[in-house]
């Protein structure tokens, strides 16, 4: 579904990605692991066209997307739940969700209402706070809103950048449960995480990034069991 081949991305003169190759197949949850500054977020930005790769190609459903502006990539069916959530704090929860459905401009109103209902069923909290400003929500609620907003686009591929960041452990489990639910409902997911154990717990495969390169690639099960990998690359003890 998504394929990156030898992608090289620079920030100015700094090489952030140094030949990244990875693949996400239809229906999977794939996780991309790595420490700080390993290139995880840059990979996300490159997929979305927020930074342009200098070399290599990004393909989605068989077509190159690495030359497209971000809004065109999103329209093809890729949504992002960004790092630090980045909800629109001055808009109401409901307006934030409507912004998510923007790429489906022209979709009949009942369909949008149906999508809204789906989000509200996943996150009943958001229904209660529909008319509240996004900025007044707690961190966990904002994460729910960011996920809900991304789902409103009916993405075929959902990118999630550090969904557990800044959340209490109980909330982390809850968020990852919901990621699994979303996947079972038919959305393919690529999740970037520092919290390897939790992410591998729900993923089918995992890639480990270090210094802008994929250094390990295996099934989630194997990665979870391979203590030496976790120690070497993921900074765990």
């Amino acid at each position, binding site marked *: 579904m998504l394929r990156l081949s030898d992608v090289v991305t620079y920030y100015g003169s700094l090489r952030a990605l140094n030949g990244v190759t990875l693949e996400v197949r239809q229906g999977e949850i794939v996780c991309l692991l790595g420490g700080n500054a390993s290139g995880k977020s840059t990979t996300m930005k490159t997929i979305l066209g*927020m930074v342009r790769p200098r070399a290599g190609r990004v393909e989605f459903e068989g077509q190159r997307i690495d030359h497209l502006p971000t809004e065109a990539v999103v*329209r093809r069916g890729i949504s992002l739940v*960004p790092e630090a959530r980045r909800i629109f704090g001055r808009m109401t929860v409901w307006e934030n969700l*409507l912004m998510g459905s923007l790429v489906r401009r022209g979709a009949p109103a009942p369909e949008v209402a149906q999508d809204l209902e789906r989000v509200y069923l996943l996150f009943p909290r958001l229904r209660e706070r529909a008319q509240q400003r996004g900025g007044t929500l707690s961190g966990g609620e904002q994460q729910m809103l960011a996920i809900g907003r991304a789902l409103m686009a009916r993405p075929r591929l959902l990118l999630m950048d550090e969904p557990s960041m800044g959340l209490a452990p109980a909330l982390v489990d809850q968020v990852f449960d919901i990621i699994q639910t979303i996947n079972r409902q038919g959305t393919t997911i690529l999740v970037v995480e520092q919290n390897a154990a939790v992410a591998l717990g729900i993923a089918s495969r995992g890639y480990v990034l270090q210094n802008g390169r994929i250094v390990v690639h295996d099934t989630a099960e194997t990665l979870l069991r391979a203590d030496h990998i976790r120690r070497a690359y993921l900074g765990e003890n």
Partner: protein
Amino acid sequence: MEVLQILPQQLVFGLALGTVYGLIALGYTMVYGVLFMINFAHGDVFMIGSYLGWGVLAALINVHVVGLHPIWVVPLMLGIAMVGAGLLGAGLERFAYRPLYLRGATRLGPLISAVGASLFLQNAVMLTQGARMKVYMTNLLFPRTWRIQVGRVNVSVLVLVMMGVALLMMWGLHLVVQRTTLGRSIRAVAEDREMAAIVGVNVRRVIATTFFLGSALGGAGGVLVGLYYTQIDFFMGYSAGLKAFTAAVLGGIGNIRGAMLGGLVLGIVESLAVTFVNPAFKDVIAFAILILTLVFRPTGLLGESLPDWEKV
């Protein structure tokens, strides 16, 4: 006391003037909201709106149209001025600002380009229309005898029309910004441009549309000011633009309701200054307000709605 007799009159006039300032201020504040730049050419877009309205009225008079009545002439003037000014604003964005911000110029780049655009527009109008004043034949539309007694206040119909048109447009803009997809997209771009693109907003188009809307309102302001003061020239955008900019800063630049409020406050303060101090000090007081705002409350009256990056 004589002053107390003319005070209500002056207040009504201040309100009318204030709504028009607010209308022009919206152009500054909307553009600032999405692009963080002060469009110094906005006053000149307003001036060209005024010329367009004048052109419509003069043409109608020249061909001896019978039955000139404000009920259709004013909307026609406003319509043409707004479309023309709107397209001009969008054109400025496309050719004077976008090439700069796309190439990652500092924020100073578009700003200087705006000053250049301002000089260009002033000189273009001076060279094509002449440096002499143009006269709005307002009294053919609104005879001097059209006045209404409201309580103790005697106001001309023209002032009421000015205020009504300006308020109607602000209300319209409010509806667009709060209730429509376009409005939500504008707010999204203002709050977090990158995230707006991630949810699929065509950021460039939204910025161009914002320029169109703000400039169209400025053009409408030009027609109203022309109708009221009856004399316009190529330099009128300079002082009117500065006043409207003051209103935008006073209300909190980037904040749409702030621009409306700032305009009203400025209009009323000015009319009070004329009544109680000395008409000659009108501009001194207006710009003293700008300076005091910048010193003591740089975020303006409704400043809490400034973009987040500004607070950091």
